[in-house]
């Protein structure tokens, strides 16, 4: 076992990105993710990578478009208002079928909001976010270890499906310190295979064009239908989640990220008090793990959705369970973070004397 290091989540992410073979970072400072560009500027310099502090998030996402179109692993990070600015670029990148990694360390919104942790960018992340028919693979870490490991997974999925991938963290995960184990051997970017679509000069081959448009009659429809097939494949194969105590549960909490950590503690409190409560922690938000929820809905009567928002993921839970079960909600919008006791209280309210 490798030595464990106590690290900030944001720092663990940087090391994870580098271990994943990424050598290009472009970004613009915004709290609460500033530790990422700060450490990136040092680390990229040490290892011969590229770090660009851009004039805006718009520029950052387009530099990513360029670097990734050149066939390289490239990432940017930002927080909610900055991610909104990037949506134009993300839409183009999705339209050009280029794999990139975008990290959103979510903060309270709308508008300038605040710098407290939040999950209110769920809709934006899981519905595409920009204009047009597309989805972005969205991963939800809940520990510093995840922040270290998920960049590699994100790049692998992004490249496998030629699609942008998002990591949806939040201020709490980024600012929290936890032990991190550098669990896997770092990838040497030179060992990654050349992409058969990458722009690198047309020596010895046909010229290549990366574009997100097709104005010829009917062509875009064909392209988008092909993309729909890709999305169907991702939905089929890549739903990721973890269950805990769900087998005999009268109530299952559905949560991701920070809320899944807090809910985990609430579940343990409830089990100690004799309530049969389980936890479904979602790892992919798109594709949404609807199959497991659909199965659970056949035997679980109650679901409690916990989110740091006014309720966004709850829509997907309702769709996945086809409203066969009762769906309850506990939300903390605007930077509020739920505590284990308040979630436990909600469990008590729902289950009442059912212990």
């Amino acid at each position, binding site marked *: 076992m490798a030595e*464990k290091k*106590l690290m900030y989540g944001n720092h663990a992410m940087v090391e994870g990105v580098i271990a994943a073979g990424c050598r290009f970072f472009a970004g613009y400072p915004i709290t609460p993710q500033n530790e990422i560009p700060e450490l990136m500027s040092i680390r990229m310099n040490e290892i011969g990578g590229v770090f660009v502090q851009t004039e805006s998030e718009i520029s950052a996402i387009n530099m990513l478009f360029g670097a990734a179109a050149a066939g390289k692993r490239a990432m940017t990070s930002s927080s909610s208002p900055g991610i909104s600015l990037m949506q134009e670029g993300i839409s183009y990148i999705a339209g050009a079928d280029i794999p990139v990694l975008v990290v959103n360390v979510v903060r309270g919104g709308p508008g300038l909001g605040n710098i407290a942790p939040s999950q209110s960018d769920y809709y934006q992340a899981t519905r595409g976010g920009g204009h047009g028919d597309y989805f972005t693979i969205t991963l939800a870490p809940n520990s510093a270890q995840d922040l270290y490991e998920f960049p590699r997974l994100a790049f692998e999925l992004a490249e496998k499906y030629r699609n942008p991938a998002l990591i949806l963290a939040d201020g*709490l995960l980024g*600012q*929290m*310190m*936890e*032990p991190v184990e550098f669990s896997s051997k770092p990838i040497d970017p030179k060992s990654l295979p050349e992409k058969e679509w990458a722009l690198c000069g047309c020596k010895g081959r046909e010229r290549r064009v990366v574009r997100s448009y097709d104005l010829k009659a009917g062509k875009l429809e064909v392209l988008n239908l092909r993309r729909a097939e890709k999305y169907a494949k991702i939905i089929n194969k890549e739903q990721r989640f973890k269950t805990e105590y769900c087998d005999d549960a009268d109530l299952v909490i559905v949560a991701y990220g*920070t809320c899944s*950590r*807090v809910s*985990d*503690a*609430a*579940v*343990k409190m409830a089990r100690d008090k004799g309530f049969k409560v389980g936890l479904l922690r979602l790892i992919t938000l798109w594709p949404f793990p609807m199959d497991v929820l659909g199965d659970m809905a056949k035997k679980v009567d109650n679901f409690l959705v916990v989110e740091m928002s006014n309720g966004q993921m709850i829509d997907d839970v309702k769709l996945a369970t086809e409203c066969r079960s009762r769906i309850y909600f506990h939300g903390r919008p605007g930077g509020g*973070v*739920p*505590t*284990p*006791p*308040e979630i436990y209280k909600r469990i008590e309210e729902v289950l009442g004397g059912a212990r």
Partner: protein
Amino acid sequence: MTKEIIISGFGGQGIVSSGIILAYAGLIEDKHVTFFPSYGAEMRGGTANCSVVVSGEPVASPIVANPDIVVIMNEPSLTRFEPTIKPGGMLLYNKTLIKSQPQRKDIAVVSIEANVIAEELGQARIANMVMLGVMIKKTKLLNLETLKKAQRKRFVKANDEQLALNDKALEKGYGLL
């Protein structure tokens, strides 16, 4: 065994450093740990607090609502966190800067003239180390030697003189009660 700790004071009192040192110490003793800082709007002079969880099992929530142990360095923090302590928990407070009396009867209360002691040792800003020394002695949460190792991981760039002074403050606190 899971212990949830909150350390609170104003910016500049080494609140965040104290939390990180505890977390490092937990890690050195092969425990599961989380550290989560929470700042006021200002980086200096505002209130600062952090949550540390030290446990034998993987830590579920890094968010601490009802701490087992609270280390309080200034007056506003006492008002804010005294009511949140678990019954049977422990409150350690810096008597030099806090004039009011804790009200709770269902918790253990420990008062330390942290600033006075720190200044006697030669540096007001090591009051936090005195408090940490007292805290681990009273709770038996972690070993003194581990904390000495842990502060070296936190203060990587500090000179030997400062590190030795920190050790002294830890020892002083440890030996107080």
